[in-house]
């Protein structure tokens, strides 16, 4: 495993109590693989990715677990050490291309800044690399575009610049936090195709964070489904879509309007996501689950292996989570 996260715990101190945004989460990603972390808002998918990057600021804090990368635990690293890894070995792109670039600096300078921080290239060489990167991500006439400011570019273009910036130091892992959510569907198709092409070309591992199951189906190799800060299911992309095990995954898949079918009413997962500061006893999905049993309300099921896949539901095993 290139990057291995074990029992990660990240908590936020809020007025109403502490929110266990990421609660005992484990996953790993191989070189050249795209692992998708999917879940609705508040499921902890973004917080997990930010924890890996060490970008959790107070009132949040990584309170437990290990993030193994090249045999070292990133959680124990100091700020300075993490600065060396961030942007060089592991880099990240974000959801809002409109606000993720600094509006007062030229595109070229922002890309070169990342190169100059991590390599000892001269300014001229850094400029050449930046132009090469812009070309790699498919931006027309890169020399002129180097001089542009972010507000002179469209959302799709800016996201390409973000990708160019993230890949400028040949990272081994790219974390993409909802990279195409804010983009139009035809532009989204371009960006997803670009990420896939670069993954093959550079051979980096991609951690794709999204709430859109369509994006997952088209792009990912393996999928992790999260709910209320916990992993509820993990499997290859084919298995998840053809034979989902966890009721939540099944519910999500059936509540998406599909182009091919012509259903009169969509399947509805009833209820709302529980309040993160006051999570119910037992399985967090219990009161929204159609096949909820007595046990589900009392104990939290453990994440168990089911022929190569992982699922957290008493329908599949009676094992209980050790420390809730």
């Amino acid at each position, binding site marked *: 495993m290139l990057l291995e996260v074990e029992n990660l715990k990240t908590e936020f101190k809020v007025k109403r109590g502490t929110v266990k945004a990421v609660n005992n989460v484990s996953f790993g990603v191989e070189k050249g693989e795209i692992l998708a972390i999917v879940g609705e808002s508040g499921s902890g998918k973004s917080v997990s990715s930010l924890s890996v*990057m060490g970008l959790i600021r107070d009132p949040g804090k990584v309170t437990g677990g290990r993030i193994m990368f090249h045999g070292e635990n990133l959680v124990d690293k100091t700020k300075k050490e*993490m600065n060396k890894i961030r942007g060089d070995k592991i880099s990240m792109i*974000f959801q809002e291309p409109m606000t*993720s670039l600094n*509006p007062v600096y030229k595109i070229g300078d922002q890309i070169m800044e990342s190169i100059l921080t991590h390599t000892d290239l001269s300014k001229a060489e850094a400029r050449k690399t930046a132009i090469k990167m812009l070309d790699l991500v498919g931006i027309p006439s890169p020399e002129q575009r180097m001089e542009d400011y972010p*507000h002179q570019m469209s959302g799709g273009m800016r996201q390409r610049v973000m990708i160019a910036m993230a890949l400028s130091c040949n990272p081994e892992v790219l974390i993409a936090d909802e990279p195409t959510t804010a983009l139009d569907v035809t532009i989204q198709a371009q960006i997803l195709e670009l990420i896939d092409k670069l993954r093959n070309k550079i051979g980096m591992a991609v951690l794709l964070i999204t709430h859109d199951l369509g994006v997952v189906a088209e792009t990912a190799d393996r999928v992790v489904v999260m709910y209320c800060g916990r992993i509820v299911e993990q499997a290859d992309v084919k298995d998840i879509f053809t034979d989902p095990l966890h009721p939540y995954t099944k519910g999500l898949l059936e509540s998406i309007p599909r182009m091919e079918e012509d259903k009169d009413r969509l399947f509805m997962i009833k209820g709302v996501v529980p309040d993160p500061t006051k999570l119910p006893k037992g399985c967090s999905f219990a009161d929204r689950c159609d096949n909820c049993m007595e046990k589900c309300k009392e104990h939290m099921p453990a994440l168990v292996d089911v022929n190569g896949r992982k699922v957290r539901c008493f329908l599949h095993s009676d094992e209980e989570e050790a420390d809730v």
Partner: protein
Amino acid sequence: MIKYIIKRLLMLIPVLIGVSIIVFFLLRVCAPDPAPVVLGQHATEASMQEWREANGLNENIVVQYVNFIKGAVTGDFGESYYTNNSVLNEIGSRFPATIEIAIFAIIVATVFGIAIGVIAAVKKNSIIDNASMVLSLVGVSIPIFWLGILFIILFVKILGWLPASGRIDSMLRPDGGTGFYLIDTLVQGDFEAFKNALWHLILPGFTLALYTLAIISRMTRSSMLDALNQDYIRTARSKGISEGKVVIKHGLRNALMPIVTVIGLQFGSLLGGAVLTETVFAWPGIGSYTVECITKSDFPVIQAVVLIIATIFVLMNLIVDIIYAFLDPRIKYGKRES
């Protein structure tokens, strides 16, 4: 860019005309008749009538206004009722004093204000942050003149370090030159006089600076906090850039823009504040002189002072807008769209 500046300059004219109308209307129409005040109670009706005739106060109000504007454009604001010396000279001799203290105050306020604001924002909810909040709250609440008085009691009466009034010891006064003693003494290489002038400037300068310093530090703190919450700061951190560089190069650079606007506005209220500071420290500037003229109903001087200060203030705003345009590439003043 030039096209924009010219357009803005043209737009200033109606504003200044408006200001001149307001001031002229207040002083020539609402104000009580200046004659008895200038000539003294025992003046006879005839001598007052003759004095009014001489100063053109009897003519039709519009004619008076036109003369005033014609004069103002050429710099001739008429004569002071008391010294019969041209208003321009009266103002000219006192103006450098006010500008010197205003510039000293704006520099002190900006340097300390931004520094305190940035530190308070970066170390949010720390002792420094709370201390800066208390300082800015107190700085805004203390009346400028009382602050001056406190400084005098502390530094002059009790500690005796600094002089209480005046701009320089009379025998060290540099003659000629620009009227800015700090510059004149340096130019003439007279360090003794320079030190003395500086000693005289410290107390009134800091008195005037504190209020603006409080406003700027409060503004800087909120603008920095705002900037540090933006997405591009998270992007910068994800690029592995050191925290210090992220705060200054990415954070402060964006926070500067609203701060510049506030400094521009504050320069105007500084000129106002100078009126009080000069009165407390007997600083021979335009502020204290204006107050005298008001009590003496010396209207030509007041009209000229208000118009000149308004012009400076309006030009300051234009300069601030231009600086803003350089800081923020999104604003294009007629620059060719790339």
